[in-house]
């Protein structure tokens, strides 16, 4: 009959109104953001970060430039390090990711053969100046492998197990066992990093 459909619709909204008072857990779906934050899922991917074992010096990245070539919006810029004789070293001198361009698609994480770059969970990165502040240099990108383990336990666990299985040790350990030819003036013998 005329008007009953409207009344039925209004009963739904009235029920939601009452529900929001008597049973807020189900009636209120919004999260009060600054005070309470909604925790992100484990596979959530925001901007990439570089992983290092132990000290920032022995980072996993070997400046092979695969991720820079694969990145769809081309927002990674790598310059490999040169030693005294000008030979290319397996370590990036500069490793910039322009967070303003990066669309956190995660392709760099997939194609990196050295498990050096992963997607972070940090999403509060707003800056005042778009051009300079969002251009993250190497220092701002480097994070310990413990951070990676904290935010993504299952993925990191799987990768560390693989690395241990294949006997891939951290960079410092490699230097130790590598022939003396590529002695690095900067690095003295630190104690080997905590293996995976």
């Amino acid at each position, binding site marked *: 009959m*005329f008007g009953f459909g409207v009344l039925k*619709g*209004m009963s*739904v*909204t009235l029920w939601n*109104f009452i*529900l*929001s008072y008597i049973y807020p857990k189900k009636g*209120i779906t919004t999260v009060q953001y600054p005070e309470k934050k909604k925790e992100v899922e484990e596979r959530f991917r925001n901007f990439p970060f570089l992983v290092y074992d132990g000290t920032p010096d022995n980072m996993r990245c070997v400046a092979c430039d695969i991720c820079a070539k694969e990145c769809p919006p081309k927002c990674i810029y790598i310059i490999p390090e040169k030693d005294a004789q000008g030979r290319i070293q397996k370590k990036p001198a500069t490793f910039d990711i322009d967070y303003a361009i990066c669309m956190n698609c995660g392709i760099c994480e997939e194609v990196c053969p050295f498990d050096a770059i992963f997607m972070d969970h940090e999403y509060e990165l707003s800056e005042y100046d778009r051009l300079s502040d969002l251009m993250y240099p190497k220092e701002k990108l480097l994070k310990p492998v413990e951070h990676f383990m904290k935010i993504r336990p299952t993925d990191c666990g799987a990768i560390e197990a693989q690395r241990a299985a294949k006997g891939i040790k951290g960079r410092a350990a490699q230097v130790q066992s590598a022939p003396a030819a590529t002695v690095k003036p900067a690095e003295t013998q630190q104690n080997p990093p905590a293996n995976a």
Partner: protein
Amino acid sequence: MEASDTIFVAFKKAILGFLQGFLPDWTVVIVSILISITAIAIFGPVTMMYLTWLERKVVGRIQNRYGPNRVGIFGLLQPIADGVKMLTKEDIVPQAADKVTHFLAPVIVVIPALLVFSVLPFGKGMAAVNLNVGLLFFLAISTMSTIAIFMGSWGSRNKFSLLGGMRAVAQMVSYEIPMVMSVVPVILVTGSLSTVSIVEAQLGGKWFVFTPWGFFAAIVFFLCGVAEVNRTPFDLPEGESEIIAGFHTEYSGMKFALFYMAEFMSAFAISGLTATLFFGGWDGPFLPSWVWFLIKAYAMIFIMIWFRGTLPRLRVDQLMGFAWKLLLPFALLNIFVAALWQLLPAPKNLIVAGAAEAVVLVVIFVAARKDSPQKRTYIFAD
């Protein structure tokens, strides 16, 4: 109970008594008028501010969220924050606008909204002015806002506001008549136009809404009131999804706030009048009279906000069709039923009027059957 009921009236008498001592009589009369004016001038905008807060809270709760809760506890200072924002916002006047009408429109739209408060009986003896043509005054003044809305839309030289203005005029004209017709039974039964005497006629729980004709007259009056005030589902003049913001597209800052204030104050006035005409004004058992009036008015306001949270908007021609083809004939037939009810003695009139009302309902329902939308069937192919 007696003291708290007429607390305001006693307070006013005290002031007047005090002034009586050393002021000549005619100034005391002016002072008493001034007191009533300031009371309304404060009550009007304050209700408007807290109606905006109430609306955002209620619609928020309907939509499974809290509504404003940051400014002050429960967001109670939110209206003040809005007010300050409106004051500090830049007041843009379009270049092609007709400066004078653009400027005057918001001013003229607030005047009727405030004037109308003078007639509402807030409590026992608390009607600012006990006009014996109070109801007529209310209906006449409340239509003045249409001129201002049309001035606003014409003045801002904007195609969308022009559309909004045209819609506003057409809507007001076609909802004014069923509104007046639905009020006629009340006058017929109480025999007087004064709102105060209407409330006295309903004292002791004998509210008109319990009578067969009163119930349906209340519905018609309330729907027309909602249309008068441009609120959902009749908010075509400022249909934001179609013509951006209708007549107040080109207004910003305090001018927009004035339009907003006029809308909410007249919404409160309409709900106050509905409470007065059909729900026995300030008549109620234990609580003081003015508390009862506020409870009933805010109940009506809650229904208006509830409408806003649920219903979509009517189209222009459906809006007109609804007023002319449904509300007006229904209100007219209602007058006959009221006449029947008034003619016959007490017990019999309820039965006869009830039967007559049922007949009226059937007639209206059959007449409106043709263009009311039908159910649809769907086939499931694979």
